[in-house]
């Protein structure tokens, strides 16, 4: 029984692994540094991220996880080095790169309904007004907010608000989805549900995902690869491939020996950084 499952999983690994390091990377981070005055936050990071890949970023606080993500979003400029999107340098924010912020409460427009918040992204990309309603309905359905289109963010739970922010990001039709500890403030059940939804969204849209988290298990569950950053200044400590089958399952995947082995490995890595 368990042998059969192992074999099936092994087969799926071959099938589902979208990561081909030979292909032209979607994102190329080239020897990026960032300093504020004399303080160096990021000290030379180079990573290639393949199209459709899901890269998780972990590391102790102050290692520059969020700063790295902000540079990918074009919200922060590297002091030296460059971020390239599909081969051309990223000079600033780009609509094809969406970012989900952790503080959903601040990232949503409180004066717009759920539908209105999704609409903002459509308006931004010049989608004609009469084409918007069906797209909005479909996106809200997809993320499980179909019945809440007319609610204001203040009338929604944290999980619903974060779903809404994800829906707005999807409305950008992004090639790259950046996530900055998006589920850190949510309860465990909601977090697991959203993890699965994000995985299926990434699988169906083919978006490349960069997911920052401080939760090691979340990183393993969501990632094709995990990069461990080390602090002072932020740099790549270790790059770990996650050879777990897709689609992932909250119970089966988390009990997989490989999952447990990775968790142990990452835990030791992070623990060393904290000492």
């Amino acid at each position, binding site marked *: 029984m368990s042998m059969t499952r192992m074999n099936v999983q092994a087969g799926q690994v071959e099938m589902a692994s979208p990561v081909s390091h030979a292909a032209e990377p979607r994102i190329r981070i080239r020897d990026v540094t960032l300093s504020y005055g004399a303080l160096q936050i990021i000290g030379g990071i180079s990573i290639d991220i393949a199209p459709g890949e899901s890269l998780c970023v972990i590391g102790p606080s102050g290692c520059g996880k969020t700063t790295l993500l902000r540079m990918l979003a074009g919200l922060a400029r590297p002091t030296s080095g460059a971020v390239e999107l599909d081969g051309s340098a990223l000079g600033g924010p780009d609509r094809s790169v969406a*970012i989900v912020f952790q503080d959903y409460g*601040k990232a949503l427009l409180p*004066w717009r309904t759920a539908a209105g918040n999704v609409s*903002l992204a459509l308006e931004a990309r010049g989608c004609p007004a009469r084409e918007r309603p069906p797209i909005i309905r479909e996106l809200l359905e997809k993320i499980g907010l179909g019945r809440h289109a007319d609610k204001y963010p203040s009338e929604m739970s944290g999980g619903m608000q974060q779903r809404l922010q994800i829906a707005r990001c999807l409305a950008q039709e992004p090639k790259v989805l950046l996530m900055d500890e998006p589920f850190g403030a949510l309860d465990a059940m909601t977090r697991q549900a959203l993890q699965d939804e994000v995985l299926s969204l990434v699988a169906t849209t083919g978006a490349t995902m960069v997911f920052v988290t401080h939760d090691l298990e979340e990183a393993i569950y969501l990632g094709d690869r995990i990069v461990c950053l080390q602090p002072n200044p932020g740099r790549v400590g270790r790059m770990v491939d996650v050879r777990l089958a897709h689609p992932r399952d909250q119970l089966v995947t988390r009990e997989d020996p490989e999952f447990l082995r990775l968790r142990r490995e990452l835990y030791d890595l992070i623990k060393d950084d904290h000492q």
Partner: protein
Amino acid sequence: MRAAFRTSWRAALLPVVVIVAAQVAATVTQLESDSLASPLAIVAAFFSVLKDGSLMRASLDTLMAAFCGCVIGVGAGSLLGILLGLFRLADDALDLTIELLRPVPVVALIPVVMMLLGFGARMEIVIIALGLLWPSVVLARTAVREVEPRLMEVSAVLQLGFPARLSKIVLPAILPQLFMSLKLAAGYALVVAVTVEITANPFGLGYGIMMAQQALRPAEMFAYLIWIGVIGWLVSLVLMAAQRRFFPAFAKGETR
């Protein structure tokens, strides 16, 4: 409903007691004065200026001037304040000028504007607008600076252009503060209007008070005075109701 009635009854107690006491005092002392009047005489004077139409005309003149001055002053001031809030460079360039102009009492502008524009509604509107300009600039600038930075990042990530950023993010975000600015301005506009009318402009309610005083008709003077108070109260009542209707969270003093 009943609770509201009970509190309003309590609130009315003091004015009623004062008025009755004043009337009793006036009757007992058989008041004959060039500077004071009994409440009943004030009521009579009120109805006489109401009947001959002078009160309504004066009220309309004052309210129109205050309204126009308010719209122009708050409008122009808020616009400038929004731009200064958004563009650091413009703010750096104008900050000193604004800080120098701001403390000039608006009453000090009366002779200057009068010399430029003469008497009339136009001069009064300009003075009111100038008086409201700087406070509106400062309030709007602060409001724009306090717009959630995350929302500005969202608009950056979505690559919203300047007009879209203004109309979809900044303006809706500061609308409650702009309305509060308008509410404060309305009260101030009435004060400035009446001041201008008392000191210079032969026009409106302030002029009505002046004329009654100079003709030694204290009852009519007090009738005008109380009427000005009532108008100010009604205006703030209307604006309060509008604020509760459109910005319920803000009216309760909550942050959004």
